[in-house]
């Protein structure tokens, strides 16, 4: 698939059962495609609640957008890799960028909603959304960039976990 922009070739490939890898050009036009693919992959799991798939869509969208911004900031033309791992009771998505790293500890803590300063935060909500919407979220530095790992549990696993 190409619309004439360098690096626009997109690849979807199965590597092993339950794993789907999508590579996209670092351009915002592709974020909606990532949402569609990840949601469709999650729907394969019959015990995945639709509301949780919605949460995953938002979380993955945020991670992908951040990755695109990181590539843009650092002039990186490589594609961004989104890896979905479908397990029996969860879906894990890893968004890998080569944007020279990210320090999660440097993300500003949002003021309380009732604080007047809360409205100063028009941006910076993306990491907060990922952390709140995924059952697990992890941001880690790699040799060449950042991995954001987001995991959403199936309803079966959530029931099991809540039962202890």
């Amino acid at each position, binding site marked *: 698939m190409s619309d004439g922009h360098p690096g626009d070739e997109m690849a979807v490939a199965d590597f092993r059962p339950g794993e789907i890898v999508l590579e996209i050009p670092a351009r915002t036009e592709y974020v909606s495609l990532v949402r569609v693919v990840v949601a469709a992959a999650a729907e394969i799991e019959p015990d995945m609640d639709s509301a949780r798939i919605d949460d995953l869509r938002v979380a993955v969208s945020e991670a992908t957008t951040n990755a695109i911004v990181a590539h843009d900031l650092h002039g990186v033309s490589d594609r961004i890799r989104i890896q979905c791992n479908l397990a029996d009771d969860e879906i894990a998505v890893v968004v890998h960028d080569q944007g020279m790293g990210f320090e999660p500890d440097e993300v500003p803590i949002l003021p309380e909603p009732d604080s007047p300063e809360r409205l100063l935060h028009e941006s910076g909500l993306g990491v907060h*959304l990922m952390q709140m919407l995924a059952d697990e979220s992890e941001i880690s530095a790699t040799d060449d960039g950042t991995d954001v790992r987001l995991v959403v549990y199936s309803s079966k696993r959530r029931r099991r976990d809540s039962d202890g």
Partner: protein
Amino acid sequence: MAEVRVGNHQLVLDLSGVDFIDSFGLGVVIGALKRVRILDGDLRLVVAEPRVRRVFEVCDLDRVFDFHVSVEAAVENGAVRR
């Protein structure tokens, strides 16, 4: 924000046709609220999709915005323009 420039500071933003919002969208809405509040105005939201409302709630923005089920309901509650 054309309405603000012509002096309307009590606004309704109709998001009933929106089925997805992310942090960028939230930032735009927060920015709009900030601008009208500086002018002693307010911004009310019409949100139909639970998934959209959830994104606001996850960021505790349901404590910042008034949500309404329709533009009419929002207008009845004080806003004069959409």
